[in-house]
């Protein structure tokens, strides 16, 4: 599985000089900043700094761009924890438990856990890539649209579990997201529900919508508080507690491994990536937990599952790029542009002929992940000060940043208007205890689900169940999904029965 000749050449390439590492720490910091500011996307940062890499050699440029990628995936989780604003769609699930921890004065613990889970998750992701790049690529090639439909459906099942108070409200919130995802040009080229606006041709812009529904509505809800933390005299962000929390990540090995495993597998599927991985991992860990009712109230397992999954999916997405030459998302598409600038193309021949470069990229990323631990730790103290800023200043400032972020994604008035509309929707939903996260999940996955479903229907000639029976991976995925849901249901019943017995 490992080509040792190529590996020794890679070690020589990476560690014989300081050259490949010069831009790693600046790259991590750029990624952290772009990831942490709502609306600024990691892919935007990578595209923005791509021209700078034209003067670098290949390994230097890839190390710089992947360090932005690594920093950005983690940075999105910081604002999700501190302000309930996921910096990107890959951090949606991080906010579920990270933000309640902050509200209870546990921001140090949440930040430490997320940093620990990110570092370990990304390390696992790249380690898997290091060992299994060739077999993984063969598996990914066998995945068709039907398998993707099943993966997306697995992500959508999380909707049903997001509202403890009323399942009907949780489901309705999810359906609103799914319906909203159908605005604009369909995958078959049919124009639907644009209401005469050219801005809606491509549908509702997910990132501005997410910023509006999550951030703006939450800021309105909390604006009468003094600071973000509801605990009087909450501890300031400090190295000691963060480092302790970082190492306490190891107390949850099964959550870490499950989150990372799901992240690698889903991240490797082109077009699905970290935004689905964090939701599926969170849902799975919650379903299999003995205390699922505690999820969403601020428990470590929730933060670890989400962060380990989104970080390990980075290794997965590199599988598709390196082994198949397919960019799994916008960030890997920018990496592909850097490849082509150096006259290189990912794919089976790249792995066969340029094995040293492949291993050099993987090794570089493994070291980069460890550096993220250090850079993240040093920057958290600054980023964490946000919990002590008076909310009367923080609320309008972050609201303004949301609007600027919305504009940054679209470049037109559509971004700010989408933020405003979804802020109003989020305010109404939060007021009546509808889980806004379910709407975001529906919106994120609806368009994806439609595209893959249509392709499955076309390939199967309309006989989707017959087609399902012909595909062993689909059958396996379906069986796993049903088993996971069934097991969770049985477990919930058992817990409920035990609670009843102990009550009587």
């Amino acid at each position, binding site marked *: 599985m490992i080509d040792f000749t190529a590996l020794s050449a890679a070690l020589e390439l990476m560690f014989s000089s300081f050259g490949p590492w010069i831009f790693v720490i600046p790259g991590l910091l750029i990624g952290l900043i772009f990831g942490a500011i709502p609306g*600024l996307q990691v892919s935007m940062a990578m595209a*923005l700094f791509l021209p700078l890499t034209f003067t670098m050699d290949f390994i230097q440029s890839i190390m710089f761009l992947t360090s932005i990628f690594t920093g950005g995936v983690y940075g999105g989780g910081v604002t999700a924890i501190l302000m309930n604003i996921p910096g990107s769609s890959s951090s949606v699930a991080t906010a579920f438990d990270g933000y309640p921890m902050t509200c209870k004065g546990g921001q140090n613990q949440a930040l430490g856990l997320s940093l620990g889970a990110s570092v370990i998750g990304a390390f696992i992701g790249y380690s898997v890539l290091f060992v299994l790049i060739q077999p993984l690529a063969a598996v990914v090639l066998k995945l068709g649209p039907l398998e993707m439909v099943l993966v997306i459906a697995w992500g959508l099942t999380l909707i049903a579990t997001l509202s403890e*108070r*009323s399942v*009907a*409200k949780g*489901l*309705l919130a999810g*359906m*609103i997201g*799914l*319906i909203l*995802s*159908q*605005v604009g040009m*369909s995958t*078959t080229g*049919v*124009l*639907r*529900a644009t*209401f005469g606006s050219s801005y809606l041709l491509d549908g509702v812009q997910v990132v501005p919508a997410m910023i509006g529904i999550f951030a703006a509505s939450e800021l*309105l*809800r909390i*604006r*009468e508080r003094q600071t973000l933390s509801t605990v009087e005299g909450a501890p300031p962000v400090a190295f000691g507690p963060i480092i302790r929390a970082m190492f306490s990540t190891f107390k949850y090995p099964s959550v870490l491994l499950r989150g990372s495993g799901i992240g690698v597998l889903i991240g490797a599927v082109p077009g699905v990536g970290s935004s689905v991985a964090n939701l599926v991992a969170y849902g799975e860990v919650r379903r299999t937990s003995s205390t699922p009712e505690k999820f969403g109230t601020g428990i470590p397992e929730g933060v670890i599952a989400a962060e380990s999954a989104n970080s390990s999916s980075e290794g997965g997405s590199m599988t598709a790029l390196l082994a198949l030459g397919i960019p799994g998302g916008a960030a890997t598409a920018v990496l592909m542009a850097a490849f082509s600038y150096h006259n290189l193309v990912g794919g089976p021949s790249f792995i066969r002929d340029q094995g040293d470069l492949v291993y050099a990229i993987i090794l570089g990323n493994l070291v980069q992940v460890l550096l993220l631990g250090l850079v993240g730790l040093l920057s958290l103290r600054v980023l964490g000060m946000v919990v002590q800023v008076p909310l*009367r*200043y923080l*609320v*309008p*400032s972050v*609201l*303004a940043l949301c*609007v*600027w972020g*919305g*504009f*940054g994604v679209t*470049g037109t*008035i559509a971004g*700010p*208007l989408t*933020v*405003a509309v979804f*802020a*109003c929707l989020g*305010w*109404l*939903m939060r*007021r*009546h*205890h*509808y889980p806004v996260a379910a709407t975001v999940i*529906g919106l994120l996955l*609806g368009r994806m689900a*439609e595209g893959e*479903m*249509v392709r499955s*229907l076309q390939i199967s000639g*309309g006989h989707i169940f017959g087609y399902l029976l012909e595909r062993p991976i689909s059958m396996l995925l379906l069986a796993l999904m049903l088993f996971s849901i069934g097991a969770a249901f049985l477990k919930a019943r058992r817990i409920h029965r035990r609670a009843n017995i102990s009550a009587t």
Partner: protein
Amino acid sequence: MSLRLAPSHAVFLAIVLAFTVAMNYSAITAKFALNNLVILVPASVLALILIGTILLSRPIPEDVPEESLRKTLGDLLLLGLFCGFCSLMFVIGFDVATFFFIWIGIVVCGERSLWKPPAFALAFAVVVTTTFGALFPFPIVTLVLQ
């Protein structure tokens, strides 16, 4: 069974219902085909059933917002200000819109000082407009800053 709902909850459900009907009307008139309706129609049918379930179920105490009228009016004021900021930034310029939004926003959120809000708003608007202006690859409409 009870049909009693908080007015804002009724407004929310009415908006969802109207939007669902409009979406389906638009999609069905555009093309009545399985490929076009594969997600929309099942999601809409389920949404309608769920709206009915919520309307007919007994409201739990948390369904009725416990917030004071003052808090609700304050929220609506800030929300209105926010919507105004989003729609006017292309008209009066991003810099000026940001400055006024931050100033008024801080006052609405409870700051009593007379000089701190405009001073903070000025610094914030300058930093944000110049930083984002340099980062974004699109032109930004400004009135004062270049």
